[in-house]
């Protein structure tokens, strides 16, 4: 097994009366792109700062590159951060900003200048050395921040919502840049964001946090199709959630009796349910197929259709009152002659329904 480069074990961090991080454990493999997602107050930024050594855990262990961060000062951590608000030093030129960390390592001026130039070229800002920070656009500032971190050739790069302060077109561009850089450099990226599509597009693994607790650690695909609990199903993925009772256990999970019929659900990351236990089943919107032949099938009335260019989302209400979300294309709509208020038949992909745990 690959030795993880970052490991958190039962980490607790309090800010005054509030527990920002509550018994969080996870490990990150070297070279992976891992995102921590959550809304504000979820503890994701605190977790990042714990990895950076800017804060220290009250309980538990934070191990980065083999070092227990408990005894490591912020300036010894060697895990440079790319900040949401850029935090470029206003009194230094672009080149001096980029070379700052190198100066802290007592590199000579000539080498510093050379490396800074190369780093700026790598982020597409060749020629910007002598510019002053105040003349840069948001996207340019973020690239300088990136160069400033990467010039140190770190094994771990930390990013705190780096696209948060950028306008959408610039953010899109930067997102692609980041993916490319990660592939090119092969180092570990730890990325914090509240934007789930962004995280899904970029990451190998996603850690979902809410109120200081980790809810699920999974690949983007698993997060979408195998949510672990109600929180992930409702706030991270796009799922219909149906309550029911376990009829019988199956090889993959259980047969669940619900107001919408008996559903064969797969057990994801939770414990084996007992027969007759009350469970909830989640079905991803992307697993819904409209008017295809084959069982199982449900019918319901179309509540809303929201289209953005070629693809969109439809909500369908079944007779039992369950609201299903479905990802649809314009073609699907035309083929089924779908309209708000019409009844439509739909089914889901096999093995799509997931048993989720209560949390």
């Amino acid at each position, binding site marked *: 097994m690959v030795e993880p480069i970052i490991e958190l074990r039962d980490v607790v961090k309090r800010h005054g009366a509030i527990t920002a991080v509550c018994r969080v454990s996870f490990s990150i493999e070297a070279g992976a792109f891992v995102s921590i997602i959550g809304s504000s107050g979820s503890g994701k930024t605190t977790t990042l700062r714990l990895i950076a050594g*800017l804060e220290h855990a009250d309980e538990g262990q934070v191990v980065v590159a083999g070092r227990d961060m408990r005894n490591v000062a*912020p*300036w010894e951590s060697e895990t440079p951060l790319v900040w949401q*608000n850029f*935090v470029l030093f*206003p009194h230094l030129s672009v080149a001096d900003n980029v070379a*700052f960390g190198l100066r802290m390592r007592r590199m000579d001026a000539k080498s510093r200048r050379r490396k800074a130039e190369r780093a700026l070229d790598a982020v597409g800002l060749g020629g910007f050395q002598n510019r002053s920070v105040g003349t840069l*656009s948001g996207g340019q500032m973020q690239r300088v921040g990136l160069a400033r971190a990467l010039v140190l050739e770190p094994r771990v790069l930390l990013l705190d919502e780096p696209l948060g*302060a*950028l306008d959408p077109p610039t953010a899109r561009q930067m997102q692609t840049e980041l993916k490319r850089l990660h592939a090119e450099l092969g180092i570990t990226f730890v990325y914090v964001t509240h934007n789930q599509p962004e995280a899904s597009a970029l990451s190998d693994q996603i850690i979902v946090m809410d109120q200081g607790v980790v809810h699920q650690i999974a690949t983007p695909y698993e997060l979408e199709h195998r949510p672990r609990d109600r929180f992930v199903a409702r706030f991270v993925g796009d799922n219909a959630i149906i309550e029911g009772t376990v009829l019988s256990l199956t090889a993959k999970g259980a047969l669940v009796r619900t107001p919408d019929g008996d559903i064969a659900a797969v057990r994801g990351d939770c414990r084996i349910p007992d027969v007759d236990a009350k469970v909830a089943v989640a079905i991803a919107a992307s697993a819904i197929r409209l008017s295809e032949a084959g069982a199982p099938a449900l019918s319901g009335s179309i509540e809303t259709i929201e289209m953005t260019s070629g693809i969109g989302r439809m909500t369908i209400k079944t007779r039992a009152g369950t609201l299903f979300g479905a990802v649809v294309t314009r073609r699907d709509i035309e083929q089924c002659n779908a309209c708000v208020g019409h009844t439509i038949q739909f089914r889901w992909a096999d093995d799509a329904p997931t048993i989720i745990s209560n949390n």
Partner: protein
Amino acid sequence: MHRFGHSALAIYAAAALVFIYAPFFLLVLFAFNTSRFPYWPFQGFSLHWFQSMANGALFSAVLNSLLVALASSFIATVIGAMSAYCISRFNFNAKNAYVAFILLPPCVPLIVLALILLAFLRQVGLANSLGSVVICHVLLTSPLAFGLVRLRLSQVDPEFESAAWNLGASRWVAIRDVVLPLILPSLVAAFLLTMAVSWDEFTIAWFVSGANVTLPVFLWNMFQGQVSAMVNAIGTVSFVGSATLVLAAEALFFRQRASTDRRIDHG
């Protein structure tokens, strides 16, 4: 009706400013008066009061004031800035009590301050020297330096230091390379302003300086003697000096701009 209120207010404001600045105008005016009495009407133009300023006692008073101002402002700015940084970046239990205590000296009536300092310094044998004046002026002006630097630090995002630490700068290196450059104008402003205060301070200097006369004490002694427009001449020069210090301090302090302010959002 609103217009009337506007212009009435404007006239009042102008009158208030005239009241505040009248002494300066008249001071300078009568420094050029031929008569030694600064009475109306103006008698004639003459430079001889300025020429008569070339005397040893005056020079030594000016020198004393300058030395005291430079020394006390330097100390006050340094220790005031250190405390301002301490308050702005650290947390500890007695913080509020600390700040309240620091800001106490300017709240004490000047005559009381002068008395307690004189009595104390006499007891410990530190009175009647320029050093005594320096000690007292540091006491008086360090809260001012503290307040100015603290105000400036509250405008500087603490994340700059976090970023510096994250890139390998130790605490003291971060202060030297990131914080100091960003607060330098306010440090200079504090230095200049405290110099102006020290240069101009009379009561305490009068009490504790003994024979080492500073400029305000020199002037006070002149007040007790014959009326002479030489006071105007000296006053004019002194005023120009301290006004320059104050205006320079104001310019420096207000010019520090948003590029360092917290939480800017860029598109």
